[in-house]
């Protein structure tokens, strides 16, 4: 199955990989490709580089989807994830009434959750994905995951946050003298007191106030987390790994493929961006096409021809090293297609360049 066939059979595409490998661009291209095929697509980006945002015409990119104008039969939309706005929306949805929502939204501890609790951004990305895929009528939702080191965060973050919000300790914080495990609770309350001495009582007070306000809502969050989890496992949800051909990002991609495998999720495609072309040529003297190029560069060093051979030898050396890194990961994700995208000589900063890249990654539009 080619990558464009994978995309055609998907309703949700999740692009994962480490930071700086062109994940956002790849996600945008998948959405653009779908629009070229007449579908209605939306791409959820986390933090697009300025020039990519401009290339997409997204000067005013917001939490709400906006149309990307372009010469395609379908529609392409884009939005940038606003972690806090998404979380606020969830609180409002599951609060019993406006008073409860207000108490949470104005709490200092709550403000910190959206900013610093690890996994919150990942959770909100999957939450937004769920809203768009289930509640809106897009044919394809493409999501660009945050560049977190723990690649799994994106998948299990809803469950993790639900656990955080439903932890035994918060019930202890709220009311230390109640419940069947009173002795344990009292011990925990002693911990809370010593802690208050180290970090300050007002800090602990904020946390207690938050969990008190949140009481009763954790079930709604947990149910939602289950539904998001189910969506991740749908057969029409495809995980595409994005990597650059560097040793360390390939290692991370391999780790991610492993973890997905443990969750019973297959990688549906691997996109390797920024590959160095090797400038191969066929000759009746094959010994000249390989290592001899570097030898010639060295013999001729300092002459124009030496410089020319150096450029060719450097290109080949890098290209060979990159291919070497990809051997293991290609076997690991098989039979998923591996798409090698040559590095572009200039910057990818307009629709023409994006269109060209979409052709390279996903192929041209049939009959188009």
């Amino acid at each position, binding site marked *: 199955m080619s990558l464009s066939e994978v995309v055609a059979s998907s309703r949700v595409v999740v692009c994962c990989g480490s930071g700086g490998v062109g994940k956002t661009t790849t996600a945008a291209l998948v959405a653009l490709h779908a629009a070229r095929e007449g579908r209605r697509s939306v791409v959820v980006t986390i933090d697009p580089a300025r020039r990519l945002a401009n290339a997409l015409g997204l000067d005013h990119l917001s939490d709400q989807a906006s149309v990307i104008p372009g010469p395609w039969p379908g529609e392409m939309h884009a939005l940038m994830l606003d972690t806090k706005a998404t979380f606020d929306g969830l609180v409002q949805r599951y609060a019993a009434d406006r008073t409860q929502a207000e108490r949470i939204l104005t709490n200092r501890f709550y403000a910190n959750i959206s900013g610093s609790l690890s996994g919150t951004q990942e959770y909100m990305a999957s939450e937004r994905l769920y809203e768009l895929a289930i509640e809106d009528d897009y044919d394809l939702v493409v999501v660009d995951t945050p560049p977190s080191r723990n690649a799994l965060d994106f998948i299990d973050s809803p469950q993790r946050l639900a656990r955080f919000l439903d932890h035994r300790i918060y019930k202890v914080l709220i009311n230390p003298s109640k419940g069947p495990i009173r002795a344990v609770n009292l011990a925990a309350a002693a911990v809370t007191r010593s*802690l208050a001495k180290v970090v300050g009582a007002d800090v602990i007070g904020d946390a207690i106030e938050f969990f008190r306000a949140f009481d009763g809502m954790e079930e709604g969050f947990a149910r939602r987390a289950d539904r998001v989890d189910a969506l991740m496992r749908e057969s029409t949800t495809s995980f595409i790994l994005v990597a650059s051909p560097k*040793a360390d990002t390939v290692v991370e991609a391999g780790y991610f493929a492993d973890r997905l495998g443990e969750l019973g999720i297959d990688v549906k495609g691997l996109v390797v961006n920024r590959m160095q072309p090797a400038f191969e040529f066929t000759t009746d003297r094959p010994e000249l096409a390989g290592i001899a190029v570097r030898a010639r560069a060295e013999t001729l060093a300092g002459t124009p021809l030496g410089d020319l051979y150096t450029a060719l030898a450097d290109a080949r050396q890098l290209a060979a090293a990159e291919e070497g890194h990809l051997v293991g990961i290609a076997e690991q994700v098989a039979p998923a297609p591996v798409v090698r995208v040559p590095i572009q000589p200039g910057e990818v900063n307009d629709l023409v360049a994006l269109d060209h890249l979409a052709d390279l990654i996903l192929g041209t539009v049939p009959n188009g």
Partner: protein
Amino acid sequence: MTPPQLLTSASVLIVAGKGGVGKTTVAAALAVAASAAGLRVLIVDVEGRASMPAAFGTDPLTYEERALVDAASDHAGVYARTVTPDDALLDYLNERGLQRLSRRLVSTGLLDVIATAIPGIKDILVLGKVKQIERSGLFDLVIVDAPAAGHAITFLRSASGLLDAVGGGPINAQAQEVQNLLTDSDRCRVLLVTIPEETPVNELIETAYNLEDRVGVALGPVIINGVHPDLPGLHDDPETAADQAGVALVAGEAEALSSAAEFRLARTAVQQEQLDRLANELPLPQLRLPDLFTSTLGRAEVDVLAAALSEQFIADDARGRR
């Protein structure tokens, strides 16, 4: 020999940059250059990644320091360890006689609540540990391999942010000491790393102003990794150049040579544009490291880059003395 001025300007150098720019490579090369110049160096990895030990061909780093380059006649020694938030917190509490509390925090999950209640506390603890290492005087230079760029600002702002949020107590005192270290240019400098491409350069400029204005740290030179060496001969026609050199080209060879040259020149032009723009928009000295055209980082590569750094240090110091 006298160690170069940059390496003695501060006892803590924090190396920061966007993912994929070779920040770890640069930290490793700096460490080797400093060790070769007679300084005993400790590398602190705050994220426990695999790339630093890989560069030296050793096992993963631990909370206990280990030698990456042994002290010898030509090296004062490079040592490395991790300082991760959880270990730093346990250390902090244990040093204050609160072992029982630290065990409870971990077993109850309260640690997550604390970290959420006080954003930045983990970073404060890590930087507090770095400060303690600096104060111990066991090393001439501490090189911190910081988190990736966006996180670097959060990381370095943690102290000033916490001073605003928490009124008093031991954590506040810790944050104050960290802030003192970060804002004292005789003790600490931040070195930003980038590659000469548009997006990384944009992020570097943004990060630089953010760090100076919002954290008040002193920035050292910008380190630009992966710069193409100049090859003037690429403008020549391969056939002509071959005729001049008396070399016969096989079929297809001239075309491959000119395609490779064209590609390389286009990439080099992008690099030059970004180097110029960086120089215009950010008035900081630049150190440039050559592109090695390999995607593997090992000791051999680190040594080449360390030598390139040393050369530039010597040149800079000579200019400085004139």
